[in-house]
């Protein structure tokens, strides 16, 4: 286990921090506690919820054009959900005591309840839906595969090998019911993360009623962008032709989500500026000072305005297929970076100003260390590795193109 960096620091570390303090901060606010890892955590959970919503659009709202990405959305959601608790674990002062959150959860704490919301979403929604959707294929692959893959598929069938028409009909019915429950569960998952911040009345940047809503919609945006990104990359790497109808639908969903997200965040600012309470002065200084690049340039301009205009442009202008794919790819990347910047602005931004409303501290991002940049990059890369493995195991190349619905369900 890496030594916590703070014990290796000398007074020079504190002197340097003090040099960057502006105005007055409570003496204990010198050290910024929720680091870039805590920026990664809502980012990853948001991707989970957003990817799942795209799957539910196909399953519940029968948006047929999204068929090619149905399984990809679910696998993406699962891959990111598995990594989601890791940034929290790395951040804890005592990760070996993490089980306490599940053993003696303090129910007044949003963090404690989140443990159960996470468990519910993982087990009762995502894993169940995946299992019911994949059951038929798992039984088939467990018969045709060889070696360890045969064992893996067999285990995943949980010993249930009935793939008769009745059983499949049952699977479909239950799967649809789970997705219906899954939609509010996805909203609850990321809304709860938003509530972890929104519940902190001590912090005027965080403690607003809109915080869960803002988090939900930015989660949708990031999840849809992720799906777009993964779909394009997977198709390109596997040399499968991209289903343009599917891509266009994802693009339209992304644009809609972007517009709603922008509106909700704008509403937050308009409200703050209008009621102009005590905290407004320090927050305006924060936004126009320490957050000027991450907020105006990265989050708003690069993360919302540019992709929004480009996506709208794709609806109006009928460019060629290659051009459209490049534009969508670029937009998805810009949005993914922009939403990360949004999480940064919320988490780090909320700790940069003093609760005395009289000053600012600074954030010294380490490169290596338990909570450093390298750790975050590794944690952000992990889900992509996991989803690649999952695609390899569970998404045969032949399935990437739009597949017809199975005969059992058509009747």
């Amino acid at each position, binding site marked *: 286990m890496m030594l916590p960096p703070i014990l290796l620091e000398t007074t020079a570390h504190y002197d340097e921090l003090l040099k960057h303090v502006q105005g007055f901060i409570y003496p204990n606010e010198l050290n910024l506690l929720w680091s870039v890892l805590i920026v990664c955590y809502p980012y990853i959970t948001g991707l989970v919820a957003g990817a799942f919503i795209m799957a539910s659009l196909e399953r519940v709202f029968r948006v047929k054009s999204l068929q090619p990405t149905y399984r990809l959305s679910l696998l993406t959601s699962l891959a990111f959900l598995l990594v989601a608790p890791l940034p929290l674990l790395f951040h804890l002062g005592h990760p070996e005591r993490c089980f306490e959150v599940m053993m003696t959860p303090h129910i007044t704490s949003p963090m404690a309840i989140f443990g159960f919301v996470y468990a519910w979403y993982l087990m009762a929604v995502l894993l*169940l839906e995946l299992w019911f959707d994949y059951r038929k294929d798992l039984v088939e692959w467990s018969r045709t595969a060889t070696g360890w893959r045969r064992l893996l598929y067999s285990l995943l069938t949980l010993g*249930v090998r*009935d793939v008769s028409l009745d*059983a499949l009909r049952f699977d479909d019915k239950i799967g649809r019911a789970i997705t219906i429950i899954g939609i509010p569960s996805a909203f609850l998952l990321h809304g709860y993360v938003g509530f972890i911040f929104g519940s902190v009345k001590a912090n005027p940047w965080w403690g607003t009623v809109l915080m869960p809503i803002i988090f939900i919609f930015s989660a949708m945006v990031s999840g849809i962008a992720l799906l777009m990104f993964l779909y394009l990359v997977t198709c390109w790497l596997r040399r499968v032709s991209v289903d343009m109808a599917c891509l266009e639908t994802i693009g339209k969903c992304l644009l809609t989500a972007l517009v709603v997200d922008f509106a909700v965040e704008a509403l937050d600012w308009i409200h703050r500026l209008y009621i102009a309470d005590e905290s407004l002065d320090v927050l305006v200084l924060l936004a126009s000072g320490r957050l000027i690049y991450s907020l105006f340039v990265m989050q708003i301009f690069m993360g919302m305005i540019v992709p929004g205009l480009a996506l709208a442009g794709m609806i109006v202008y009928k460019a060629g297929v290659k051009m459209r794919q490049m534009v969508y790819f670029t937009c998805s990347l810009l949005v993914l970076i922009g939403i990360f910047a949004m999480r940064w602005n919320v988490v780090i931004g909320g700790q940069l100003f003093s609760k005395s409303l009289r000053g600012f501290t600074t954030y010294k991002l380490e490169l290596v260390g338990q909570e450093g940049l390298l750790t975050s990059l590794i944690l952000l890369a992990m889900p992509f590795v996991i989803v690649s493995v999952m695609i390899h195991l569970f998404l045969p190349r032949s399935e990437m193109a739009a597949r017809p619905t199975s005969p059992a369900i058509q009747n």
Partner: protein
Amino acid sequence: MSQPKLPPQLTRLLLVTVAIVAVYFAARHFLVPPSFGQYGWYRADFLKEAAALPTTYAGAAACAECHDKVVAKFAKSKHKGVACEACHGAQGAHADDPAIKPAKITDGLFCVRCHAANPARPEKFPQVNVAEHNAGTKCGECHSPHHPTEGL
């Protein structure tokens, strides 16, 4: 008469669910600390642990047990509200074992930390502009710390 059978998927999943719930409660049995929940949602034993920490400062009452003459003189002076350890530092070790001697106060301008003039100090509080008032002399040359106004 045929019994309506549960689909195999459901029975298998029910089994898995029951197993998970059983593991959870079994884990709780072993992992929740013994005194948890006795007074509230916390480990009640901790109250004892928190109260058992060693002290560093002895408290003025402890000084009076041995240094009664000084304390009596002190109690008649302007400094009567000031704790002995405010100037002499933490003396818990000395109170437990008088063989451990407190460090002598060698700073000639030791009194400055309370009595230097500062606009933020209450106006009625005795404070002096050190450069003018002392003009190079030590505070102790005119003032006795245990009775600051004696002999003036």
